[in-house]
């Protein structure tokens, strides 16, 4: 039996494996279903990776490669083109590799399967079903593989960081961008990105705007946009639509493994040490929530290694937990349970809101006890705000669920 199997060779899985080896675990296997390990950054051909976890500035592909090299140097057994397709009744992993099909057992399993953008059918956008409807992930790989005919004129749905990443990819591929539509009243990226894009590419940003229909066959010809304020609709000519963000954890193995999911994140519920609801099973990275930057995922993988090592050394009982739930407009908190007193990764919780909140007063309660209250700065949908972990010591481990709510008004 292997000591640890890490499922998923992206930043979280590789960082976890490296840290496990550093902690003296001898037998660490990373299973990655892609042709090469490295995860999503492999396709993000822009700068901005590695500063906070590797202390150097890298492009996505270089960052992914760096993690693969570090893992190999650390003695991690990375197996690419190796996919876990399910669970055997005895709890081992059913694995398909190029030349084999086998059941693998491990003392501990770390799920680091990442997240994906919801594609058009998952958003139930009506209309025809033409070519030219993409996600950012698909777009980046089409460009990377030098696919002909990416398109000539695109509409981007969403206005988060990744949406601007899609914009740069489109421009790089020679596709003009007609505009960017978001149902929210503002964009969710950094002001610099938006101002820059507006100046350089004369990009219209359509706020409070819904894409209500896609038309054209066999290729996209136009989309219908509806102004949520006035209800007015108009058609915009384009041959490409890129659906960005709206992440969902790739939680298939979590569900088929019987793990409890957090209703907010839709990833497995984890405590601050990243234990799932199943003994010996841990989860890390963007499987926990969609989506955080690569370094946050990597640091969460590194963080999970501590509890994995503890479990291997003692195989102590799996602790009882108290879940943390969010009240609207708060969307989710991650991690979302408390069991031992361990601090979370980076000593903080990530908190998300579905609406823009200016200086919300946040309250954390357990039953009628106030554990923490404080004011956050601006909350932006699709971006995490940090919540301190100082209140963990006050949690009654036998008490009811912890509730997080905002006193602020909707904006």
């Amino acid at each position, binding site marked *: 039996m292997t000591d640890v199997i890490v499922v998923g060779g992206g930043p979280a899985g590789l960082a976890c494996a490296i840290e496990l080896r550093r902690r003296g675990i001898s037998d660490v296997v990373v299973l990655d279903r*892609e042709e090469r390990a490295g995860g999503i950054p492999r396709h993000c051909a822009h700068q901005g990776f590695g500063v906070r976890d590797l202390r150097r500035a890298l492009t996505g592909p270089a960052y992914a490669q760096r993690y693969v090299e570090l893992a190999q140097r650390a003695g991690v057994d990375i197996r690419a083109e190796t996919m876990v397709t399910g669970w055997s009744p005895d709890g081992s992993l059913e694995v398909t590799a190029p030349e*084999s099909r086998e059941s693998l057992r491990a003392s501990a399993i770390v799920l680091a399967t990442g997240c*994906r953008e919801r*594609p058009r059918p998952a958003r*139930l956008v*009506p209309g025809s*079903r033409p070519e030219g409807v993409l996600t950012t992930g698909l777009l980046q790989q089409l460009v990377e*593989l030098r696919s002909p005919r990416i398109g000539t004129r695109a509409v981007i749905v969403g206005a988060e960081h990744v949406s601007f990443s899609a914009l740069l990819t489109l421009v790089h591929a020679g596709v003009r961008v007609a505009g960017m539509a978001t149902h929210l009243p503002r964009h969710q990226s950094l002001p610099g990105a938006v101002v820059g894009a507006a100046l350089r590419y004369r990009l219209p940003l359509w706020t409070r705007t819904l894409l209500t229909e896609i038309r054209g066959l066999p290729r996209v010809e136009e989309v219908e946009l509806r102004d949520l304020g006035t209800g007015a609709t108009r058609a915009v000519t384009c041959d490409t639509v890129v659906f960005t963000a709206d992440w969902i954890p790739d939680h298939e193995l979590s569900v088929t493994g019987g793990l409890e999911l957090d209703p907010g994140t839709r990833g497995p519920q984890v405590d601050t040490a990243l234990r799932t609801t199943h003994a010996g099973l841990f989860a890390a990275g963007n499987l926990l929530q969609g989506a955080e930057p690569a370094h946050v995922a990597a640091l969460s993988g590194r963080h999970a290694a501590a509890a994995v090592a503890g479990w291997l050394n003692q195989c102590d009982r799996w602790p009882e937990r108290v879940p943390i739930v969010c009240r609207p407009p708060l969307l989710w908190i991650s991690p979302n349970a408390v069991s031992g007193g361990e601090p979370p990764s980076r000593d903080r919780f990530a908190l998300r809101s579905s609406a823009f909140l200016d200086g919300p007063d946040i309250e954390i309660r357990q039953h009628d006890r106030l554990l923490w209250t404080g004011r956050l700065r601006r909350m932006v949908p699709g971006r995490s705000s940090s919540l301190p972990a100082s209140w963990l010591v006050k949690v009654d481990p036998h008490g009811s669920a912890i509730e997080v709510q905002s006193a602020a008004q909707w904006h």
Partner: protein
Amino acid sequence: MGAAVARELSRFHLSCTLLEAGPDIGAGTSKANTALLHTGFDAKPGTLEARLVRRGHELLSAYAAQVGIPLARIGALLVAWTPEQRAAFPEIVERAHANGDAAIRGVEVEELYRREPHLGPGAHGALDIPDEGIVCPFTTPLAYATEAVLNGCELRRGTRVVAVERRSEGGFNLQTTAGLISTRFFVNAAGLYSDELDRLAGHGGFTITPRRGELIVYDKLARPLLNHIVLAVPTGTTKGVLVAPTVFGNVLVGPTAQDVQRKDDTSSTAEGLAYLRAEGTRILPHLSQHETTAVYVGLRAATEHTDYQLTIHAAEGYACIGGIRSTGLSASLAIAEHVRTELGAAGLELRPKESPATVRMPNIGELSPRPYEQGGRIVCFCERVTLAEIEAALGSTIPPVDLDGLRRRTRVLMGRCQGFYCGARVAALLREGTE
């Protein structure tokens, strides 16, 4: 339908050509239906449809086992949600009996919820139709066409008939978008366009008004919610919204029923999708917590008549297969058999081949083991499609010409990520494979 007829005829010593106006086999109405294997229990007794669906059910069940088409008789539960619907049961049972279905029986509420524990509240009982089933709508026409081609039938894709001319010595000259074809016998299986082709052939006994059916496919993680096909009590115009497992392991909700003007109007609508979402979560409340994987839209070839418009003009050597609505997949082999028999009676010489070629189709369903369960390079993660399967499809008797065709042959890109992970690689494989 055309593929089924071509398969049937190719088993005899004949020169046979299959013309497909679309880019590929099964790329029209066939690819977007409810993928059910109907018994015909609810057909109008005495009609051609009732007889042919029943016969087709028998033939397709046997054929599927022989060539490897995913098919399972999982049974249907026709659920009454109101006392009025329940009151319609005796009539439905009587009709089923008239159609030769002896297996239909009533199911009380308690048993219903035992067999479908996730069913929404408020059911007033059900009828159990154990022989209703699910079948792969992609493999079936491909198997027919492949068998036809292997038996010498010539397949011309992307070839539309634009004019029909009668030859003085008998037979027809068909003017197509790819030249002239002369034939002694001519079978019209043009689906939504069968009325137009029938008029080109000098007839015109019916008009097709496409009836749009929108369907939502839910994530595979929802599959454990359902054991049977859950049917609605039919109204005058439609069989209602059903919830069914698919052979691929998803859950399907649909169809809507709306008459549309255009025969290429396969657009989904906001209203239709909202309605299906509401109906789906009413019938199976836990569906609300699941992701939707796909939306598709089919056009049923509805006519002003209630029965199939299946006419053999024996003297001319012309057969028209029109007005085949949602039961076409189930009835296809029986319709082909019927057409072959009638053409034989009309003078088509039918000398059976001694050992016609048979086919074995790649299994793309979840009802039996898939190739990845033996090891392999999985390219499409959501649907577990291996590189070997993609290469086999690209090198098959009727290779795909586009991504949609590759999807129907292997299931690539059909899954929950819709190409987020593998879309670019699959497109590159198709490009390389079709160059």
